[in-house]
């Protein structure tokens, strides 16, 4: 098990190195001129040239990469061109915020989707199953800017019971923070529920029909034990993989949700960095997101190995 995790951590370091090279190479061919973007369309050309030189954006990409790498080795992630602030604290703050939103989302979503999936599968074709399957699919098909605006209109404006801006005031207590997160979390849950619910339901149905379930039932185990020990353990494997793969997106890809609920996380930050060609910021954000993504996958793999002994034993069986 230790060797398995160790190998995965090494692979993670390698992934980050490759990602940083790729990001520098790709941003180099992005259209647009950094200083022109900062100073605006009506700034004189010599001011643009001078700012490019000041930022060092006029030097070859290889030199910039080498310098950036040397900086990162010393713990300096560079300064954002557009905001003229240090990248590291900004990325760290935003990452924390995004993790809070993603974490809250998963904390509500996962138990809800799995419980509903199990309940629906156990009475396949029943009223609960049919209603939930249809409704969740319909809601899940709506993009987040539709469900989000709907939630804001209903709970923020008509009923006026919830804050529509997810960022709590400075020094707010945990309850206030939670109240501010209700709407964006609700939006995330509506967006992802159908996916996880259907995944769990399908694997449950399959596992319930499997031979080992019949064996377990026939040897006299109570239905509760059969579901918990045998069925769910097998049925959850694909769900775990799916959640792991979603974590990177949940942390770094929620640009629309973050913009709509005015909750600037790392998704909005990387979106800004990309559209403004703010390379130090873009690389910083990308690395942070790649890291979380890889970590999410690692966690999913480990959990998979815990749930499914075949993976563990396969690796250690010699």
């Amino acid at each position: 098990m230790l060797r398995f995790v160790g190998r995965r951590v090494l692979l993670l370091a390698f992934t980050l190195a490759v990602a940083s090279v790729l990001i520098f190479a790709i941003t180099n061919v992005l259209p647009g001129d950094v200083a022109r973007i900062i100073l605006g369309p009506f700034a004189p050309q010599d001011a643009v040239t001078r700012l490019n030189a000041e930022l060092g954006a006029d030097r070859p990409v290889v030199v910039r990469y080498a310098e950036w790498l040397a900086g990162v080795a010393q713990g300096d992630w560079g300064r954002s061109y557009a905001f003229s602030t240090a990248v590291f604290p900004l990325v760290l703050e935003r990452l924390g915020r995004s993790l809070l939103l993603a974490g809250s989302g998963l904390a509500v979503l996962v138990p809800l989707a799995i419980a509903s999936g199990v309940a629906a599968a156990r009475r396949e074709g029943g009223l609960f199953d049919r209603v939930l399957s249809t409704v969740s699919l319909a809601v899940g098909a709506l993009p987040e800017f539709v469900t989000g605006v709907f939630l804001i209109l209903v709970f923020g404006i008509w009923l006026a019971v919830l804050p529509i801006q997810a960022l709590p005031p400075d020094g707010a207590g945990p309850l206030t923070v939670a109240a501010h997160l209700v709407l964006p979390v609700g939006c995330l849950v509506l967006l992802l529920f159908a996916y996880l619910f259907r995944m769990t339901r399908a694997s449950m149905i399959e596992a319930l029909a499997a031979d080992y379930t019949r064996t377990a039932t026939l040897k006299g185990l109570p239905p509760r034990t059969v579901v918990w020990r045998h069925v769910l353990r097998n049925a959850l494997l694909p769900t775990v993989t799916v959640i792991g793969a979603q974590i990177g997106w949940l942390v770094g890809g929620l640009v629309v949700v973050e913009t709509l609920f005015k909750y600037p996380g790392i998704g909005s930050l990387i979106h800004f960095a990309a559209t403004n060609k703010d390379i130090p910021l873009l690389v910083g954000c990308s690395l942070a997101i790649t890291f979380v993504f890889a970590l999410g996958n690692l966690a999913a793999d480990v959990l998979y190995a815990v749930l499914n002994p075949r993976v563990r034993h396969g690796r250690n069986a010699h």
Partner: protein
Amino acid sequence: MVKRTDHKFSTAGTSRRQFLAGTSAMALALAFAGTASLSSALLSSAFAQAPAPKRGGSLKVAVPAATTIDPVKLNSSGGIAIVQQAAEYLVYAEPDLTLRPVLATSWEPSEGGKVWTFKLRQGVKFHDGRPMTAADVVASFQRLVDPANASPAAGAMPFLKKDGIAKVDDHTVRFTLDRPIGTFPYFTQTYNCVVLPADYAGNFAEKPVGTGPFKLVSYRPQEGATFERNPDYWDQPKPYLDRLEIQTFESPQPMVLALQSGDIQVVQQLSYIDAQGIRNAPGISLIQADAADHRQLCMRTDMKPFDDKRVRQAVALCFDRPTMVRGLLGGLADVANDHPIAPIYPEKIEIVQRQGNMQKARELLAAAGYPQGFTIDLYTHQYLELPQFAALAQQMLAPAGIKVNLKVEPTNLYYNHWTEVGFGLTDWTSRPVAAQILAQSFRSTAEWNAAHWKNPEFDEMLAKFEAEPDVAARTKIGNDMAALLNEEVPAVIAYFNKNLRASRATVKNLTGSMSNYLDLTQVWVEA
């Protein structure tokens, strides 16, 4: 109408015109009592004049995205609005374009407008307690025009050099320009030109020191800024608000939703399209300001097919301008006549309005050798109503045989080559003086002369127009220039936009602005 004295200004405060606007709006509102939709907005602005301002309270304002808030490099709408609360200009252009003395109390030209002497206000203190003097003003302007600092302001004031800015005494500054500029005081409120301490080190976000009505407490990228009242502000008892929060938004829809829910109380600027949802909303006022914002449909005069003036005139004749104003902006614009001197400027232009005339357009095209028309690429970018304008242009040019291929690009891409394309549609924002737009877009040597139009006669008139301090004389030259542009059509200018601002009805004394500047000094809130 409005009396303008460009030489010397001494009075400030609510103008008579503003007062009249208030009372007439009230009368109108009473007349329409019952038809809530229209009158609710008018009523609130009418009563805004009546009760005495109350001290205290806080305000949350939504502004568009901000990048850096270093005043020297400043360019984003959000950044400008944030800096304007903490730091001030020498003068401030009111919605009717009269100049209000701010850090300067009076100004006077000499040598025919080549030298301008500004008297500074006494007893003004920076937020760190030091007095504001001529040395700070000189250093602030030198910093902006120094080529080493890469400031957008250097492009706005090409006639001002570092060694032309001098201190006369502790409260007098003299600007010696390369050439006479009759409206120079207006240029001193270009958005970068706030007065900062002489030893400002380029770190406004960390050490924000100005003379403004509010002190900047914190600034966070993509979130916004918080302010507290400056108790030592020179214009007591202003400002009225105790606390101020400016939130930056990446897109307009969340701003409007937050205004509706009451989470924020003011939306600093919003487009006609975004204002649709709150036009008739109760408790929300829309403030409309005349502006000189416009769109230039530029045609490269040095390339086929637009090298022939008749072709450019034909294009201009294809547009049905009143329909465009209604269709694109719901009537929230004034029809324009292919020159950028908007009705808001004191130089009133009285040349004959060009009307849509397809018959004449076809004749002109045939005479120029394009009886069947031609095919052309039209470039523009994803911004405001520009894509819709381009699509409308495609439809309106089709009957003349001009087949338009639309190239709607992302903003950053378009601005990389907007002066190079043969046929391009560009947005121009307001400048406080007409000469600025004329010089930047149509002077032969101008960097942003996207039509590549070179006309020595125009350049000569423009030089006179820029130098002339007298409004009547400027109006005469302005009419000649407008007529020339209308005849030559380097660019189709179909309408002048108006600016919109929205607020909750509890917010009082908020004004609009042609430049979307945000002045909250006199704003107060009802409990």
